[in-house]
């Protein structure tokens, strides 16, 4: 037998006995969870009943303090948050948004009669390209910009703010990946008209599902809160309410995760650095660096592959990793602009060149609570070996690709 057999794709046993998923999956210790549950059962205050519950109120207060923002409004999930934000800001028309984002960002626009206009990304950082945004603004009829901070990094917020001001359009952000990130000591969550965080289990701060909307605008905050659905509207015009309340148990989990935030961020940073170090020398692999933020939450390890230098395509590398039970992912796949009904939106030729290239070459590796230092070593070894044995892997995978 040859040494090639160390890889599962070539017939060896998988390195991991259990599937290792991509996602943070930080979660409170059992004791804290049990205590919180007992407290809620004692109070019988399960969720907003006429008024937001005590734990939701406390969680929001702590979030405001942590982010240095006037209003943090806890919600059921980030998509609900974006839908409410879009509706409240009322751009109802064309909104610039990157295609290179989770599909939920784009879908949130549809429910408020907005049409996404896709901008391209910067090939280095994979954040929205300012040049592309400006070109689309020049095209006219734009009502808003929905910026997306990706990968524990941030958009060039100041430049984008100037653009939005220059063209007089509403600017707000999907900050699902960016909780705890800072730009020059100013927290993400304080930029634009509103920002929307996700507390889905795959992000650094988890409430299983969940999120919050942040703003410094008092009038806007009152509207957003009314739309969340925990109050009965009084006199006057009722808002088009939604149901997006966060429950007390979610808030309890969020409070504990906020206590653990510093520790989890440090853990992410160590893991991220370990990946950078071990994968840095492999030809054809580039790990995305953080450019706009001064503090990152390091919640995503994102690799970009150069086929010819590495010897395998992105999809071939992922097949190698999956055979080892590493659920590395092509993220944002298929791209938003390739999916119905968004595929029908007219585009200029070349409008999304960098997005399309990123969609072919980008992958995410596991980082967070379910990952150990040993696991990272193994994963990096697999990638290294995949490079060394790329020829035999290609021929092993070829019959699969043909079917």
């Amino acid at each position, binding site marked *: 037998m040859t040494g090639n057999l160390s890889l599962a794709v070539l017939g060896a046993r998988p390195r991991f006995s259990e599937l290792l998923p991509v996602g943070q*999956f930080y*979660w409170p210790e*059992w004791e804290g*969870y*049990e205590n919180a*549950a*007992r407290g809620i*059962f004692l109070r*019988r205050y*399960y*969720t907003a*009943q006429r008024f937001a519950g005590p734990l939701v109120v406390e969680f929001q207060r702590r979030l405001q303090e942590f982010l240095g923002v006037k209003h943090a409004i806890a919600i*059921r*999930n*980030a*998509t*609900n948050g974006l*839908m409410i934000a879009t509706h409240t800001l009322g751009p109802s028309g064309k909104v610039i948004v990157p295609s290179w984002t*989770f*599909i*939920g960002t784009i*879908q*949130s626009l*549809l*429910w408020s009669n907005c049409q996404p206009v896709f901008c391209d990304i910067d090939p280095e950082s994979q954040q929205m390209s300012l040049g592309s945004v400006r070109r689309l603004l020049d095209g006219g009829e734009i009502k808003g910009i929905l910026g997306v901070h990706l990968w524990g990094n941030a958009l060039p917020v100041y430049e984008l703010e100037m653009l939005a001001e220059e063209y007089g359009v509403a600017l707000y952000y999907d900050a699902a990946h960016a909780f705890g990130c800072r730009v020059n000591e100013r927290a993400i969550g304080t930029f634009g008209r509103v920002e929307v965080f996700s507390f*889905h*289990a795959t992000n650094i701060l*988890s409430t*299983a*599902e*969940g999120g919050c909307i942040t703003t410094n605008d008092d009038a806007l905050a009152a509207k957003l809160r009314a739309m969340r*659905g925990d109050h*009965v*509207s009084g006199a*006057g*015009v*009722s*808002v*088009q*309410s*939604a*149901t997006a*309340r*966060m*429950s*007390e*148990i*979610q808030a309890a*989990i969020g409070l504990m995760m906020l206590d653990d935030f510093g520790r989890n961020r440090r853990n992410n940073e160590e893991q991220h650095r370990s990946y950078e170090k071990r994968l840095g020398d492999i030809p054809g692999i580039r790990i995305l660096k953080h450019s706009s933020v001064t503090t990152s939450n390091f919640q995503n390890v994102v690799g970009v592959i150069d086929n010819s230098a590495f010897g395998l395509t992105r999809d071939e590398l992922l097949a190698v990793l999956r055979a080892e039970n590493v659920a590395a*992912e*092509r993220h944002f*796949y*298929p791209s938003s602009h390739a*999916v*119905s*009904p*968004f595929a029908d939106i007219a585009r200029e030729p070349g409008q999304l060149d960098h997005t399309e290239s990123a969609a072919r070459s980008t992958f995410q590796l596991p980082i967070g*609570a*379910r990952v150990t230092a040993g696991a990272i070593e193994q994963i990096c070894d697999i990638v290294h070996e995949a490079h060394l044995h790329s020829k035999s892997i290609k021929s092993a995978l070829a019959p699969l690709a043909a079917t």
Partner: protein
Amino acid sequence: MSGLPRFAVCGEKPLFAEAKPTGNLYRPSIEKFLGYSRVFYQSKRYTDEGELCRLLELRLAEFHAVERAICVSSGFWGHVLAMAALALPRRREIITPAFGYRRSDDMIAWAGFVPHFCDVDPETLGISVNTIKAALNDRTALILAPHPMVNCCDAQGIENFGREQGIPVVFDSVEAAYRDYNNRRIGGFGDAEVFSTHSTKLLNSFEGGYITTNNGQLADRLGHMKRFGLVGAETVKDGQALNAKLNEVHAAMALASLDEVDDQVALHRRKYDLYAAGLRNIDGLKLLEHKESQRPDYRLIVVRIGASWPLSREDTLRLLEAENVLARPYYSPLTNKVVEYPRVCPELPVTEAIVQDFMVLPSGAHVSEDDVEKIIDILTNIRRHGSELKLRWKTE
């Protein structure tokens, strides 16, 4: 001073130190809830269709005797998805009663349609084939039929009518989860039925809801639509989608509540019987009786205020609130709301005639049998001293 008994509205201490609400706020066994929670502590899977969510869907399908149940983040978004999935193409109006849930028009607006309000039947307080017919036109995309708080609307008749006309029917069965109609379980009528498991409802999952249907294809589609249209990790089947997933923590709570639902109904029955016995002796208030043939949960206590009752409903509610008895009006018609989106609001004579007649009295887990006796006592005192009270308010 007159011989008025002690009313908080006249400055006395309220009867209850703690508010007595109408919402259920059912507390299942904490050990059961923690037991289910251990499942996701083991699997480390906290959402995205984990084991508990799948188990809950099986258990709910069994509970309602239907093919499929789809858990969602709330009844509200369950409705939006059901409407979006079922409405006839190129048609804009959804028929629903104005005398119903205070956010049903908002749900319809989110789904992208125009609510067309219809009247209710004076007997059932629900919509009927006749009231639907009055609103039906060539723009009708779907019928959204809510069951009233007490007893069912004519689910069979409405289902048949929808089928004859080729108009999809969705039932809002939030208050009817335990009921039968014509010896069939609620859950299997129409094209789909939508339920809430908000803590004020029969089953408490903190927040949450579910959709039931016997249409497997529809169930699959709703399953995609509630998770961004995704099928597996990398196929997007449906662009008109959002996040309406139920997380595993909420699913654990729903399962714990579902385990005890029959015991819970027995408790409601005892309090309902106390209300019934007490209200029988109060002239001017008439309890809406839960029909035993419809397998009621006996949870909601709705009374009709008669002409001989000495106070207006609003004064009665104000007086009760001062005692920490949080009785509520039985729906306020949506036509009274001012909204920013289009609606069709025709004349609704039955709704207009009865809209001031009903109120909902406290029930659920925060209300003990002893509390029911006390509430009956206040109502008896109001009946006895109503005209004095009114006079006194006038002079103040």
